[in-house]
């Protein structure tokens, strides 16, 4: 067994915020297209020999790591943990300390929770309720699941008030769609109001313009006037009709913005949607998009990402775009292209977008 030579950057008894060693440095250096793999493999072989007592330090090695390096560390942790569990040498108290320190990265803390659950399920159950407001949506799932069960049991026992209380507490903490759907259904069945657009942070009010052409799918790369300047009073020659802006407000629980409603079910067309988001502060955030059409997204005039895939499926949070919101007005422009397919399942020309933090917690616009 090899003891890790770890050099904590900030090594406090209750907070393993970051750790480094030549091995962890080598793993943190991995990058795209296999860069750093060979050095990481050597480092990994060394880290995998660590004793179980080093697991918190290995978990700290996930802090600040890119997703590739996280996986390198995850695999090393798995090997060390297998050995430690077999030898009944899991440092569960230290793992609990690591888990409860929210300065550690969410993925590292999820790994810590999983280790605790393997080694000491009772301890995992004990800490679960404390995770209801956790920065990790993965960790929130555990207490939310317990609250769903608690509410269901109360309803079964005829105590509807207790059931509603448990489900409402669960909804307050829930960030994953499946759990939110379950809780919203239960609460609405119990005649409780649930504001899903607000819970998710969907952007419901937009200005839409169409139809520009998307013949031969060339609209995706064509720069139409709204990409150069958003002028809500302007009109343009469109595909078979004049293109002009019009207000659209979604009434959908999941914030669907449906171009077919104002413009009818057109094919081979391009539309744009524009809105403004008033942020209370300068901050990091995510724009989360669901869309089965070709799309591009700009924030404050900067292209964030685009994808020319059509009708392969759509889901909530299909694309997560990290952004920086500036205090005050932020402009959001979406290009949404409809293609030439005529099958029934290619009718949709729509998207949904929400603003949230990395946990999926809605960021609501500040009052004007």
């Amino acid at each position: 067994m090899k003891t890790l030579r770890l050099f904590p950057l900030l090594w406090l008894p209750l907070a393993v915020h970051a750790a480094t060693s030549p091995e962890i440095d080598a793993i943190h250096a991995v990058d795209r297209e296999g860069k750093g793999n060979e050095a990481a493999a050597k480092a990994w072989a060394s880290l995998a020999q660590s004793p179980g007592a080093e697991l918190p330090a290995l978990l700290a090695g996930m802090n600040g790591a890119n997703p590739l390096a996280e996986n390198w560390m995850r695999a090393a942790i798995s090997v060390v943990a297998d050995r430690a569990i077999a030898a009944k040498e899991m440092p569960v108290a230290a793992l609990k300390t690591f888990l409860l320190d929210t300065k550690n990265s969410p993925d590292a803390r999820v790994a810590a929770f999983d280790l605790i659950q393997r080694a000491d399920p009772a301890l995992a159950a004990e800490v679960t309720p404390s995770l209801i407001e956790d920065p990790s949506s993965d960790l929130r799932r555990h207490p939310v699941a317990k609250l769903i069960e608690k509410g269901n049991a109360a309803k079964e026992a005829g105590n509807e008030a207790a059931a509603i209380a448990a489900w409402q507490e669960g909804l307050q903490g829930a960030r994953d769609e499946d759990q939110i759907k379950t809780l919203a259904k239960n609460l609405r069945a119990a005649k409780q109001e649930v504001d899903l657009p607000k819970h998710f942070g969907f952007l419901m009010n937009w200005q839409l313009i169409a139809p520009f052409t998307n013949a031969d799918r060339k609209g995706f790369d064509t720069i139409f006037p709204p990409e150069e300047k958003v002028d809500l009073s302007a009109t343009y020659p469109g595909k078979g009709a004049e293109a002009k802006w019009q207000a659209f407000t979604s009434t959908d629980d999941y914030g669907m913005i449906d171009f077919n409603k104002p413009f009818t079910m057109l094919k081979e067309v391009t539309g744009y949607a524009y809105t403004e988001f008033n942020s209370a502060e300068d901050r990091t955030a995510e724009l989360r998009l669901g869309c089965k059409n070709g799309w591009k997204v700009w924030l404050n005039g900067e292209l964030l990402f685009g994808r020319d895939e059509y009708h392969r499926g759509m889901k909530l949070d299909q694309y997560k775009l990290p952004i920086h919101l500036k205090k005050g007005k932020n402009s959001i422009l979406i290009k949404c292209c409809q293609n030439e397919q005529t099958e029934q399942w290619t009718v949709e020309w729509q998207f949904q977008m929400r603003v949230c933090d990395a946990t999926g917690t809605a960021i609501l616009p500040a009052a004007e």
Partner: protein
Amino acid sequence: MIRTFLFSAIVASTTLSHADWLQFRGPGGSAVSTDAKVPGPDMKVAWQADLPGRGLASPIVVGDRVFVTCSSGPEQENLHVFCFNAADGSKRWERVMRATGRTMTQSKTSVAASTPCSDGKSVFALYSSNDLFAFDLDGNLQWLRGITYDYANASNSLGMASSLVLTGGTLIAQCENDSESIALGIDPANGVNRWKIERPKAANWTSAVVWKDTVALQSSKGLIGIDPMTGTVQWNYTDGAATIPSSAIGSDAIYIPSNGVTAVVPEDGSTTQLWRASGLKPGTGSPLVLNDALYVLNGAGVMIKASLANGDEAWKLRLSGPFSGSPVAAGKYLYIASERGAFQVVDTTAAEGEVVCTVELKETILCTPAISGGAVYVRSDGHLWKLQ
């Protein structure tokens, strides 16, 4: 150079066995076992092992070890690699990694759709998220890639399913889709690209097959022969092809799911068409060549035996379908499991073909079986079975 080649040959000869089933549809993607010890017609469950997540990737077999992948979690973000003992189904090791690419798939498929492959020393596991991991046979991580992390639009919202192929010293990964459609030739020693080529911008779930010293990549455009070491095009069949069933390899020709089935001989930089049978229409499963015949499972669950010489049909046999997996073969038998869990053995030498054994596994099975050591392995979302 010669010394390196000899050393490699010696290593290969000491680590690979004809009993091994190292990739999707076995040796070279042929779907036919080259193992002297073949499974018989009378199959029974030898053991079953629990799996904690979903998957339709086939098992592979290296020596006395069976490897299989699955995905779990609310978004299928947990990527599992399992190693089981072939003898009794006991778990040797498991690794759980995390998806760095998109995990969205159509509901029937899953993130663990691509079959892993091995060179007898390492196991390479690819997922729909385009995460690619290399472990040694004992579960030690050798390298990893996040191909969607590398190329942000290389994904398919319906899910990816093309399986890995290792040939000519290169690991070939197809990440073909409507947007950033690519294929990579990767150094199996360190995970670094030997080459990267653009592929037709269209969703594609077929897997490559090995034809002599080329690797054949299928797409809606046709079938293209690539030098595995350089990625350069050696031959190109351009008359279109299916995007779900893959091609069958014979000793003298490739049988492409193209306008029915088209028999093609690639040679000297071009392709020669031998025949085309428009009535042979493979369903989801891929055709195979066994002995002197081509076997095609159509979308209605009918197995068709056809002539390798001209594509003429010899017999048709309705199996108990429907099917998502492909048939595999050993000796004179075909082995396939239906989506409803009916594992079936077909005697190809019976006058009209005959189902000689059915084992009801009573779970949804979407995978293609693997054959090794006189046994057949299949998996569901919940279990891995050994039948013999």
